[in-house]
């Protein structure tokens, strides 16, 4: 049993914290909410130079061969600071699966460009039924000569407006189970038959509806094998769930720190409000939840890193993190009083991100159900 980080991980955390504090202050976060692109290309290049995009790639693909736990450390810092942009879409939702399931050619073609910060990717998975079930994948891919033709609709595709490539989850056939017949395609985001419309969100992040109207994809642009794509989706969702938890973990720590500082400064009844037990106990509850999230995330990340079956640990972490993130933000905002409800205060930036985080890679109920299944119910 070892809860410690390696020296490299501690260094990575410090480096990430310093970089983000300097390059991405809250004023920048606010600016990017209004910016057309929603991210800062120059910051993106600097992140690539620091090795963040290629963190878990081998050197062969321009990476630095770090492990999944290192990535969790990095994501915690991104969540703590709030980093707008396509890191999660590109790395968590796409690059990890290319690394695992891509052909040699796909890996050499795609990964070094991701590592250099030259390519942005995103995953097109959710359809209008808003479900993570294989049975809800209806976007069809029909074979026509050397191509597949994609027809259908995806919603809540993050960062699609700046993506160079989309990883599209489509149905190529029907099998005995809904999982059979699902295929993943690499689609050039500039394909003409592809129509995007932004879905305005409370977080001010970039999410899109994409309509595929006879989008042609070469048969060589399949990730994995035709009809067996659902196991890749499972792989993606497992890792994305843990990395989203890491982001939540960092965000919750930030909200706790912010609220604790405020409780010491704000004077009412001639003393700091943090001297009142009602406020203290709220903060103590927040701390317990923050540490619970941290350890659950690290446990799940270690399982993945060791290649052990980790669905139980992953779903426990995501269900808890999603639930506690909301609670911590609400307690944080209300402990601040009216100032916490204002546009100018930073705590609202975290609260407005709760909804997307809860749904990402499976909401609370989905993961509770997964836990129930893992308990053999």
């Amino acid at each position, binding site marked *: *049993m070892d809860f410690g980080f390696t020296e490299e991980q501690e260094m990575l955390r410090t480096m990430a914290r310093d970089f983000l504090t300097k390059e991405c202050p809250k004023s920048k976060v606010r600016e990017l909410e209004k910016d057309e692109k929603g991210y800062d290309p120059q910051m993106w290049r600097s992140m690539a130079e620091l090795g963040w995009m290629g963190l878990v790639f081998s050197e062969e693909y321009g990476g630095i061969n770090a492990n999944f736990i290192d990535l969790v450390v990095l994501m915690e810092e991104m969540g703590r600071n709030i980093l707008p942009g396509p890191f999660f879409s590109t790395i968590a939702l796409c690059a990890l699966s290319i690394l695992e399931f891509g052909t040699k050619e796909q890996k050499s073609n795609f990964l070094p460009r991701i590592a250099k910060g030259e390519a942005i990717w995103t995953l097109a998975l959710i359809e209008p039924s808003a479900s993570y079930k294989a049975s809800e994948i209806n976007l069809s891919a029909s074979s026509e000569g050397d191509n597949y033709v994609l027809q259908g609709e995806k919603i809540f595709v993050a960062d699609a407006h700046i993506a160079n490539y989309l990883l599209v989850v489509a149905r190529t056939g029907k099998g005995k189970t809904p999982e059979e017949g699902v295929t993943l395609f690499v689609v050039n985001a500039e394909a003409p038959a592809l129509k995007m419309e932004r879905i305005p969100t409370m977080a001010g992040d970039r999410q899109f509806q994409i309509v595929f109207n006879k989008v042609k994809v070469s048969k060589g642009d399949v990730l994995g094998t035709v009809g067996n794509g659902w196991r890749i989706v499972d792989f993606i969702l497992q890792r994305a769930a843990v990395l989203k938890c890491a982001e939540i973990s960092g965000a919750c720590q930030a909200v706790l720190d912010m609220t*604790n500082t405020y409780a010491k400064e704000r004077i009412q009844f001639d003393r700091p409000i943090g001297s009142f037990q009602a406020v203290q106990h709220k903060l103590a509850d927040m701390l317990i939840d923050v540490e*619970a999230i941290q350890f659950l995330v690290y446990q799940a990340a270690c399982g993945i890193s060791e290649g052990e079956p980790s669905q139980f640990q992953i779903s426990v972490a995501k269900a808890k993190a999603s639930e506690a993130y909301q609670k911590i933000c609400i307690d944080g905002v209300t402990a601040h009083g009216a100032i916490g409800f204002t546009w100018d205060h930073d705590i609202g930036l975290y609260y407005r991100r709760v909804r997307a985080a809860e749904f990402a890679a499976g909401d609370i109920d989905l993961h509770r159900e997964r836990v129930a299944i893992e308990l053999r119910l």
Partner: protein
Amino acid sequence: MDFRLSEKEKTLVEEIANFAKKELPEDFVGAHLIDQEFRDFEFEISMSKKLAQKGWLVMSWPKEYGGQGASLMEQTVYEMEVAYWGIPGAWMGISGTQWVGPCLMLFGTEEQRQKYLPLIASGDKDGVWCTGYSEPNAGSDLANLQTRAVRDGDYYIINGQKVWTSKAQHSRWCWLMTRTDSTAGKKHRGLSLVIVDMETPGVTVNPILNYYGRHHFNEVFFDNVKVPASNLVGEENRGWYHLMQALAFERRSVAPLAYGSSRRMLENLVKYINETQHEGKFLNQIPAVRHKLAEMAIDVEIVKLFAYQFIWRVTQGAIPAYESSRNKIMGDDVIRRVATSGAEILGIYSQVDPDSKWARLRGAIQGAYLGFPGSMIAAGTAEVEKSIIAQFKLGLPKSY
């Protein structure tokens, strides 16, 4: 970072499982699993002896005091498994293995260690301890205690009353917190820890029944009780600081126990839900029931990780402070969730007397349900623990 048990720890888990299957009656796990009501003291102490013979009872103590020099992590794993299997007799009263022994090793005299540690380690009746902290006017505000020990030559003369003293009726020794200096000004100064032989004239133990009629705790009166001055533990008048250490040991032990017993309850409930029909379908087909179990499993994981992380901190040379309060709160919360959600799942049968033939799961849920409010109070209420976290971890002003 690594969350796996070592091979040695895994072997220990297996050995304890084999031991429990061999030594405990079949279907032993029942109402006592969580409320720790081992109503048969002779059986309990016979199990203490067996645990001692196995080398487990005080496994992390040094060999010279009857231990095995095992790691704290191994001891934690052992405690978790003992709670999982509901093995009675592991604590030598309420306090022997958990805080009397560790405290004597930290600040007892060598003479005290030689005398008391092997008694605890042997699993003998003479190694059973109760703890005398609470008094009628000293609960959460423990420093308000009034029991007095007055020095008289080579002796202390003790007068006063303790209350809620668990297992005093079976204990040979009392780990007593008493006032030794009434002029010290601040009330937490002038306190001392003293060992009292419960067979000394002037010690009277009266039972107090809890709200479900069990005799778990007592009131203990001290009427001119004459105790050798050499029974003072640590420094005279610095008992408060020793007490903080003892309480940290006590609160630490909550999480491993809560993890072991809640994991067992969870498994038993999974089995029950998979086998039980209601309104024409199995309980496992009802989403609300499935989600209750999932929520339990999440809390069980958290308390496990808190327990491990605490020990890991100790092995790193840290002296955990707020973590024991955190673990106490989480340990209580998980048992509460198992008890209340479990009771909701049992439905109409949740009201049945745990000992009755009508009880489901051998009364384990009812036992937990009746018992958990008591555990939540023992060793510090959630309110006290949260105030400790606020003060010592979050740096907020003292609020009590």
